[in-house]
């Protein structure tokens, strides 16, 4: 059928199918800014304007648009002619992955057309229909308010985010004096009163020993921000190929069953269905799907397609068809006869004799005890048990339970595979681990690594969910079977049923304390529920134990853990990687101990937390899946973070005071805190490499295998290169994560990119700089190289003569001793210096309903030197928001048959713009000697402290202790009633 529309001001007649969604048609017309986030329009990634009104393109038939005017981001501005909203989004650091940016800008555009001077509440209301899993909405709101001021004709002062602007006085470390609220109004963000938001800007307290840099430490706009703000086609799906097929996955309706018969005849008979693959069609090769270093930690308990299913949503068959709709339709024509087996969902029950055996296949490798569903049994201890237990005058025990949540990146898992002109398989995939994918997929599809190329385009969020070789093998199998390009994208429901999630755990602590409050021993027994498959099951639990026990570093520490199979969808890597679970347990437990002993909570923790110079007692015993390396804390501003945060929050004025909302005695206020400790990469394991080459004009290509998920990692790495090479950031042209074109990197996980990959960039840049200096010394300036230095795009001799980088490049490439000035460097560290943080929270608890409203979150963070403060602040704000969902509302729940109940973004609630608490970030910098320019990590630590800080605040408000997540109204209400 034909439809007539006006698209971005241009009248068009289009041919569409009656069933086609408007989203698909718009993308076919080149409007790649319109994204798919979910089938229900709840993510808002598909937001467009229809006759000026914001509406979701995914839930409209294209035919409905006939006769209407449509506007997408492409109709508002372009990379060469950015709208002021786009400029402000770039300037304020509002863009992370950029996947939701076009929708956010359109929503704001519609608002500002009708309401030129909006309040912050109106801006948040306008943005409410576009879920942001990354930013915490802070900078997005700031961007819209600032753009509004420009559009009104005002001239707000230049946006000037703090750039390490508050140097530390000599006595700072030990005596803090400056707080965010001490700042003069508007001084920090440079905005006028009309563009204020309730967001307090990040404060950076810098040690005086930190070096002054030109590029590092500056809030440079993300180097990919313009193309993201313009909605250019940069993601895996923004790509067209002739004759492309579309894949769909048939999944199990049963939690545990054996496939007795599977018949694909009827599906294959449908016109347009090209291929159906079942376990009968693909090689049976066991593997572990976690995107981890070689050799992958065991067990190897998966195959691409099996004759047994182990959770609702497990793989059964995969289809390739001429259209996505046909592929979906074909699924119902695949006849499957199941022998339904008893499921088991409770990990404690799964370990009992007689429980259903989930992995009874003979070829599974390295399962600790398959007959008891025990994947791993971990036991590690350090210290003199008898002596330390003898010293303890009080022994405390506590049990804490954490639940299963989903990463919920707004861009689902998506991959496109095809044969290239050399008959090599190309995999364009939204992954955090392109090099691991290439190595891991090779045996499954029975191709050598050299015949596989993996390309990572821009990614619309990952959070660990894409640290997995999750769907690439199925798509590759289809391309191999059909010879045609195949596109495979998970549905939103499959993200919940068939992707990965955070491990649920039971944590039981036993801790001995002297009468003066000194912890002498700490034991943790943990049960980790790894669901149907063991991917990441070993390492997540080890990290959980390591983080929990190392935070207070008791002289005798013991960790015992059982990792257990159950028939729930498989957990895996999720930002924080065990630390949020472990820290929820230990922080709750230690607060309970302090209160039981009548000690001040902060002082009790201060007495016991790990300090600068301390060796981490469990570092060797608990590596990640293997023995670790000895670690000493070389830098820590934890005490300063706690003190500064406590002062900013008014901790000592509020904590322990019974406070109700005036006139509403059932509403109780509370304040809570927790400390956090994380890592910077995996010591002795993570490796990143970088190549840098000099171009004719003095610019540099920087090639890295590191994977920017939207975190700003590419920008940070470019800043490190620019600083070292002494050029502006614009002279660094970064290309990342293509297994054919860039050097190796383990990938984006474990908070490793800045510290590990950044270390590689630093080395490569130093080597290139040295090559330039040597060429100039020998062939151009004829002086000893030691007498040369650089000064912004120039090499300068002590006698004042100089040559530009461009001159050096042209000379070395074309004139004398010709060679390509370039270098490749790798970096691996035997250290993983921990970032530290103090997390504070304020809540209101409705004692009649149990509903908790979070008013304020503040995190004071020591991430070493923040290479780019504005992107670092975005990481903390977004991480706290995700952590808030973890603590408060997000939960994967199941019915009695193991069918997930929350499989859309309405039931699985993600915090929206209108309901956010006040978010504040304070950076307390240290100068980490092992990190590039003093940097440690910042990406994951914001996930660690919110849950225990909320538990602490709820206790302060009500006197009840919650030992199980999340803090739903009924759970709080039940706790309140059980104490009455």
């Amino acid at each position, binding site marked *: 059928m034909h439809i007539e529309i006006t698209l971005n001001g241009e009248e068009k007649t289009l041919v569409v199918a*009656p069933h086609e969604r408007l989203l698909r048609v718009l993308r076919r017309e080149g409007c790649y800014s319109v994204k798919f986030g979910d089938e229900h329009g709840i993510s808002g990634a598909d937001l467009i304007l229809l006759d000026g009104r*914001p*509406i979701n393109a995914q839930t409209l*038939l294209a035919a409905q648009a006939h006769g209407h005017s449509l506007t997408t981001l492409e109709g508002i501005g372009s990379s060469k002619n950015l709208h002021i909203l786009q400029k402000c989004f770039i300037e304020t650091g509002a863009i992370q992955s950029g996947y939701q940016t076009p929708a956010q800008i359109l*929503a704001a555009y519609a608002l500002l057309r009708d309401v030129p001077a909006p309040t912050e509440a109106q801006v948040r209301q306008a943005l409410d229909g576009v879920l942001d899993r990354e930013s915490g909405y802070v900078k997005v709101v700031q961007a819209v308010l600032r753009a509004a001021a420009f559009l009104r004709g005002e001239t707000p002062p230049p946006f000037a985010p703090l750039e390490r602007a508050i140097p530390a006085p000599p006595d700072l470390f030990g005596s803090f004096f400056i707080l965010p609220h001490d700042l003069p109004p508007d001084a920090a963000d440079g905005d006028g009163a009309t563009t204020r938001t309730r967001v307090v800007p990040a404060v950076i307290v810098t040690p005086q020993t930190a070096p002054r840099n030109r590029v590092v430490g500056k809030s440079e706009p993300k180097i990919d921000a313009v193309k993201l703000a313009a909605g250019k086609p940069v993601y895996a799906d923004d790509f067209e190929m002739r004759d492309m097929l579309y894949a769909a996955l048939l999944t199990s309706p049963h939690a545990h069953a054996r496939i007795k018969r599977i018949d694909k005849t009827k599906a294959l008979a449908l016109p347009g269905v090209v291929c159906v693959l079942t376990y009968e069609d693909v090689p049976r090769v066991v593997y572990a799907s976690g995107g981890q270093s070689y050799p992958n930690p065991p067990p190897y308990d998966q195959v691409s397609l099996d004759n047994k299913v182990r959770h609702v949503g497990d793989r059964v068959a995969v289809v390739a068809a001429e259209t996505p709709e046909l592929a*979906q339709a074909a699924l119902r024509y695949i006849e499957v006869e199941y022998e339904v087996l008893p499921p088991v969902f409770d990990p404690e029950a799964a370990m009992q004799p007689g429980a259903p055996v989930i992995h009874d296949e003979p070829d599974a490798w390295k399962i600790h005890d398959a007959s008891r569903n025990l994947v791993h049994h971990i036991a590690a201890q350090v210290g003199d048990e008898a002596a330390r237990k003898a010293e303890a005058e009080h022994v405390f025990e506590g049990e804490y339970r954490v639940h299963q949540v989903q990463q919920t990146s707004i861009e689902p898992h998506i991959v496109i595979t095809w044969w290239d002109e050399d008959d090599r398989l190309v995999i364009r995939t939204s992954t955090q681990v392109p090099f691991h994918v290439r190595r891991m997929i090779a045996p499954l599809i029975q191709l050598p690594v050299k015949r596989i190329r993996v390309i990572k385009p821009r990614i619309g969020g990952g959070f660990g969910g894409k640290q997995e070789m999750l769907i690439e093998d199925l798509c590759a199998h289809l391309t191999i079977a059909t010879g045609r390009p195949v596109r495979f994208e998970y549905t939103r429901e499959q993200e919940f049923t068939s992707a990965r999630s955070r491990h649920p755990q039971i944590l039981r602590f036993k801790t001995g304390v002297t009468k003066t409050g000194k912890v002498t021993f700490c034991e943790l027994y943990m049960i980790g529920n790894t669901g149907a498959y063991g991917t990441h099951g070993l390492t997540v639990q080890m990290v959980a134990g390591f983080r929990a026990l190392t935070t207070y570093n008791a002289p005798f520490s013991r960790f015992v853990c059982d990792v257990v199979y159950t028939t729930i969808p498989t957990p895996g890597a999720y930002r924080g990687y065990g630390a949020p679970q472990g820290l929820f347990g230990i922080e709750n437990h230690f607060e309970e101990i302090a209160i039981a002993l009548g000690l001040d909570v902060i002082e009790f923790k201060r007495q016991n937390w790990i300090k600068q110079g301390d060796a981490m007692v469990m570092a060797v015993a608990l590596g990640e899946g293997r023995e670790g390396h000895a670690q000493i804390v070389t830098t820590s501003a934890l005490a300063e973070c706690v003190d500064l945060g406590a002062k900013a929050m008014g901790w000592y004025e509020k904590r322990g005071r019974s406070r109700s909302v005036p006139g509403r005695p059932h509403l109780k206020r509370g304040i809570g805190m927790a400390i956090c400790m994380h890592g910077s990469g995996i010591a002795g394991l993570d490796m990143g490499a970088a190549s840098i080459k000099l171009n004719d004009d003095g610019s540099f290509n920087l090639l890295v295998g590191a994977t920017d998920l939207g975190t700003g990692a590419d920008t940070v790495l470019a800043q490190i290169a620019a600083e070292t090479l002494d050029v502006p950031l614009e002279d660094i042209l970064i290309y990342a994560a293509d297994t054919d074109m860039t050097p190796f990197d383990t990938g984006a996980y474990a908070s490793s990119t800045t510290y590990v990959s950044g270390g590689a960039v630093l080395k490569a840049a130093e080597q290139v700089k040295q090559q330039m200096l040597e060429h100039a010394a020998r062939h151009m300036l004829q002086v000893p190289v030691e007498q040369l230095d650089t000064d912004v795009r120039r090499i300068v001799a002590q006698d004042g003569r100089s040559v530009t980088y461009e001159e050096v490049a042209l000379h070395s490439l074309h004139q004398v001793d010709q060679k390509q000035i370039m270098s490749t460097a790798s970096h691996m560290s035997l250290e993983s210096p921990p970032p530290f943080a103090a997390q504070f929270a304020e809540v209101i608890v409705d004692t009649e309903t149990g*509903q908790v409203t979070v008013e304020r979150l503040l995190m004071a963070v020591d991430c070493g030197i923040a290479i780019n403060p504005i992107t670092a602040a975005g990481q903390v704000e977004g991480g706290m928001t995700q952590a808030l969902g973890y603590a408060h509302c997000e939960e994967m729940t199941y019915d009695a048959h193991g069918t997930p109940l929350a499989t859309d973004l309405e039931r699985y609630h993600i915090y929206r713009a*209108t309901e956010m608490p006040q978010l504040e970030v304070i950076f307390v910098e240290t100068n980490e000697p092992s990190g590039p320019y003093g940097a440690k990590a910042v990406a994951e630590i914001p996930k660690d402290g919110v849950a225990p800080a909320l538990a602490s605040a709820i206790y302060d408000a009500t006197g009840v202790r919650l030992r199980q997540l999340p803090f739903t109204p009924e759970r709080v209400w039940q706790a309140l009633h059980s104490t009455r």
Partner: protein
Amino acid sequence: MPLPEVYQRPSTLAAALAYLQQPGTVAFSGGGLLLAGVEVPFRQVVDLQAIPELNHLTPGATTIDIGGAVTLAALVNSPALPALLRTALTRTLPVNRCSGISVGEALSASRPPAEWLVALAALGAQVAHTGFTPGEAAPPLLPVETFIAQRAQHPGPYRGIITGLHLPRLADGTGTGAAHVARTPADLPIVCAAAVRQPPGLQPRLKLALHGVSPLPVLALLLPLEGAPDAALPAVLEQVARAIQPVSDDQGSAAYRAAMAAVMVRRALAQAQSAAGGL
């Protein structure tokens, strides 16, 4: 095949009803709920957006008449409507979703927007529709809660057309109130309630509606209200306790829902009394 093969956009209600006689046909406007999902199991879809009598919002002397194809966004933006109704939409439904969902679609959905439904029931709204099956004689106007109860008797997609929603004008001095409990400020309600209290001078009565405390999406009660409000509260709560049939699910146990019903009713009633001038 679970995909529409034919799209129709009639300009009259009669034409739309004629299409509905054909097998495998569904009528809709908006699409934000009907089309939310991977499959749309109809051969033919009938888009109601071009039918004038379904696209009006007319404030009258005694009622406000709203066509079934009017979007929820239009309700949010209409100052003629009670604030109770508009705020019931904006807390959980963002503007882009409101733009894509029509009144008829929302009422006939398997999961109608709960607080809006509760507000409609408390306000005494009535639904005009063409019946639950094609060819059925149009039934009389139905109270919202009755329509929802009958809709539950016809599982699967709604096969009629909701032609209108009729909202009684509130008399001066009428008090309205609402309350909810949810995990977060913008989350779906676990339990919610709305109360509309007649002003002085009329027969004292209270219309209550609740969600989350019965197998149906909405439970409505019309109660006489005698004596001082505070004194009447225990009797109201007693009648509510008798009427509810909460069901446990992953969001809340039956016991919790029952307890919350009392809290929500008390709060909604207090708000209604306060709005009505402390009746």
